[in-house]
C-alpha cells in the first residue's frame, strides 16, 4: 500500500516512515501543509497520515481539500489536541480516524491497517491463525477442530489479538480497545486475561500462539514472538 505522511516534525516523520516501511508499505513524506495537499491531490495514495498542526496551510484545510476531491481516500489525523470537541471537529471535517500525541507507533500501525482493510477488503467474519479460528458472527472459537469456550472479555481479547496477528500490541492498546477504559499502569487485568486465554487456547496444543513481547506487550503469531 502507498501511504503519505504529512508531518512537520522531521524526526517523528522519519520514525513513522521507517516503521511503516518495515510493514512493507511504500511511504512518501511532506513536511508542510501546502506540499502535503499538493501530493495528496496529485498522486494516488491508499492512506494519508496527516498532522493537524502544520506550518502554512494547516491540517484541517488540507483535510477539507482532500475530502472535496478524493472523498474515499482514508485520512488518519495526528493531533496534540485531546479535547472531545477537537476530536468531533476532526471527524466532522471528514477524518476517518485520529490519534492523540504522544501516541504509540504500534497503535498508529494498527489503526492504519484497520483503515486500509476497511477501504480494500470486506470485513472478515472468520479470523484464522494457524489451526486457531474465531468466528466473529457465530462467536465461536476452535483450535485444531476442538471447540473452546470463552467469556465475553476473553473472546474480545482474542479477537483483538487475532485482528493484529503477527504484530505487537501494547497493554494500553489492549485495555483501550478491549475494555474501553483509559489505561492505568497499576492494573494487571491484561496480564491476567492473557493467562486465562493461554490456558484455553495454548495449553495442550502446539505450538503456543500467544507470545509475550518483553517490554512491549503481546502478540499472537504462528511463528513465535519477535522479541
Amino acid at each position: 500500500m502507498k501511504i503519505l505522511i504529512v508531518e512537520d516534525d522531521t524526526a517523528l516523520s522519519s520514525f513513522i516512515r521507517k516503521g511503516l516501511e518495515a510493514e512493507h508499505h511504500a511511504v512518501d513524506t511532506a513536511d508542510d501543509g501546502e506540499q502535503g495537499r499538493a501530493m495528496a491531490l496529485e498522486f494516488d495514495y491508499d492512506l494519508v497520515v496527516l498532522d493537524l498542526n502544520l506550518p502554512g496551510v494547516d491540517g484541517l484545510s488540507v483535510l477539507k481539500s482532500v475530502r472535496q476531491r478524493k472523498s474515499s481516500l482514508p485520512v488518519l489525523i495526528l493531533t496534540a489536541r485531546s479535547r472531545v470537541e477537537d476530536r468531533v471537529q476532526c471527524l466532522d471535517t471528514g477524518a476517518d480516524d485520529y490519534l492523540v500525541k504522544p501516541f504509540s507507533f504500534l497503535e498508529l500501525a494498527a489503526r492504519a491497517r484497520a483503515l486500509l482493510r476497511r477501504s480494500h477488503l470486506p470485513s472478515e467474519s472468520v479470523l484464522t491463525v494457524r489451526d486457531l479460528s474465531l468466528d466473529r458472527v457465530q462467536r465461536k472459537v476452535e483450535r485444531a477442530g476442538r471447540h473452546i469456550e470463552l467469556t465475553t472479555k476473553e473472546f474480545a481479547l482474542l479477537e483483538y489479538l487475532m485482528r493484529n496477528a503477527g504484530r505487537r500490541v501494547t497493554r494500553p492498546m489492549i485495555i483501550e480497545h478491549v475494555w474501553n477504559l483509559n489505561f492505568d499502569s497499576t492494573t494487571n487485568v491484561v496480564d491476567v486475561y492473557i493467562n486465562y486465554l493461554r490456558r484455553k487456547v495454548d495449553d495442550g496444543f502446539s505450538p503456543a500462539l500467544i507470545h509475550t513481547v518483553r517490554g512491549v506487550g503481546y502478540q499472537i503469531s504462528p511463528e513465535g514472538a519477535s522479541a
Partner: protein
Amino acid sequence: MSAAYQPSLKLLQDQEVLGELLHSLSQPLTSLRCSLELSIDEVAERQQAAVSLALQQTEKVIGMIQLMREYLDAEQPGSEAHPVALAPAVRTVAEELSSIATLRRIKIGVAGTCTASVPVPEPRLRLALQYLLSALIQAARANSEIRVWLEEGSSESVLRVECERGARFRDDGARGSRSQRDSVSGTLGKVRLAIASRVLETAGAFLAMEDGDRPGFVLRIPRWLATSSSPA
C-alpha cells in the same frame, strides 16, 4: 466586574500556557516513544532490557501528561455539550470495570434508576465515573461489594456509591507509600479523583467523598441541569 475579570483572565492565561507546554512536550515524547518501540527489536539482546525500561518510563511520563491534559480540560464543559443521561453511563462504566473488580474478588451491584442528565461530553462523564469507581475498587477489600444506587428525588437525582468494606477512599493510592512506585501511583490516584471532581462540579453537579467505615461518594444532580446549562 474588573475584580472578578482579572483572576478569571489570569486563570485562562495560566491554562493556555500549561496547554501550550503540554502540547510542546507531546511532540518530542511521540518521537521518543516511537523510536524506542521501533528499536527494541533492533538492539542487541543485552541492551533490550535497557530499551524496554526506557520505554516503560517514557510511557509513565506520557500517562502523567495525559492526566494533566484531562485536568486542564475538566473545567471546560464544552460549549455544545448535550446533556448525557447519568443512569446508562453509570451502568456502562460499572459493566466495563466489572472484570477488573472481579480479579480483586469485588462485586459491583447497581440498583435503582434516575432521569438525571449531566451537561458534559459523554466521554468526559464516563471518564469521571471511571476514575471514581476505579479508586473505590482499589480501596475495597477483597470479597467485598461496591453498591451503586441511583435515586430520584423531588429536586435532584442522587448517585450513591458505597464500599462495603474498604480502606480510606481519598487516601487510596497513598497507602503503602513505602516505595517510589507506590508514591507515584498514589499521586496519580489523587489526580484522577481531582479530575472527576472537576468534571462533575464544572457541569453543575455536587460531589461529596465519604470516608469512614463505608467509603464512597455521593453525586447530586439538580433537576435544572437536565434542561439548562446554568441555574435559573
